[in-house]
């Protein structure tokens, strides 16, 4: 306790960034933003998947290749991958207490989200631009 009288920094400045995440509201906000976007995009996604469910190759190319479906799929993939990366980050921070393991898992989390996002986007665009 004696420290607080020696330091010029405020108590707030000293505790800020010390939690498991080392950060604050930005993470919460982006999770909510992408979560809100996910609601209509998920419904659109399920509708597109239902259209694809019994499609053969030619039909599937036509469905995913349609600009409206392609754009909705891109938006869904973009929003979902950002959202799931943030969500998984919280899960890792909650359960993994060894600093080294935590950093490795947080890196893998980002790699996975970027991979899923970019690979999906590449495939959607390739189909959309003519297979």
């Amino acid at each position, binding site marked *: 306790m004696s420290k607080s009288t020696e330091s010029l920094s405020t108590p707030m400045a000293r505790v800020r960034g010390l939690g498991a995440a080392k950060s604050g509201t930005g993470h919460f906000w982006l999770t*909510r933003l992408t*979560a*809100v976007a*996910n*609601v209509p995009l*998920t419904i659109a996604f*399920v509708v597109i998947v*239902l259209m*694809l*469910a*019994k499609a*053969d*190759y030619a039909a*599937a*190319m036509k469905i*995913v290749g349609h600009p409206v479906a392609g754009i909705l*799929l891109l938006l869904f*993939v973009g929003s*979902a*991958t950002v959202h*799931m990366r943030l*969500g*998984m980050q919280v*899960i890792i921070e909650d359960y993994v*207490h*060894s*600093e080294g393991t935590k950093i490795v898992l947080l890196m893998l989390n980002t790699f*996975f989200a970027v*991979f*899923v996002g970019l*690979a*999906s986007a*590449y*495939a*959607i665009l*390739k*189909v959309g631009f003519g*297979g």
Partner: protein
Amino acid sequence: MARTGPAERPLSPHLQIYKPSITMVMSILHRITGAALFVGTLLLVIFLVALASGKTSFGTVQAIYGSFLGKLVLFGYTWALFQHMCGGIRHFIWDTGAGLERETRLKLGWATLIGSLVLTALAWIVYFLG
């Protein structure tokens, strides 16, 4: 950080000590479905990349996804998606400060579960009829 000595402050007791309530079960399900959806995005990438790769790879993936086991996984994925979506909407209500009273809380929990089951059933009815 791993704790070495005994904690010098009051700590929250662990999960097992509480009587399970619908609120608690839905909360745990939100996390489990979130993690499942995370892994489940692989299903989407595989499908899309197979489609972009050509007729043969698309046929292979469509056959696997259309098999009994494939359908079972996709059924689970559908439910996880809707359960998580309904759970997320419940979070939005709470984020405004509303719906935190005991009665409303319990109702919201049941609404989450019933909503997800109804939406899942609806999607699969459309699939089987379509």
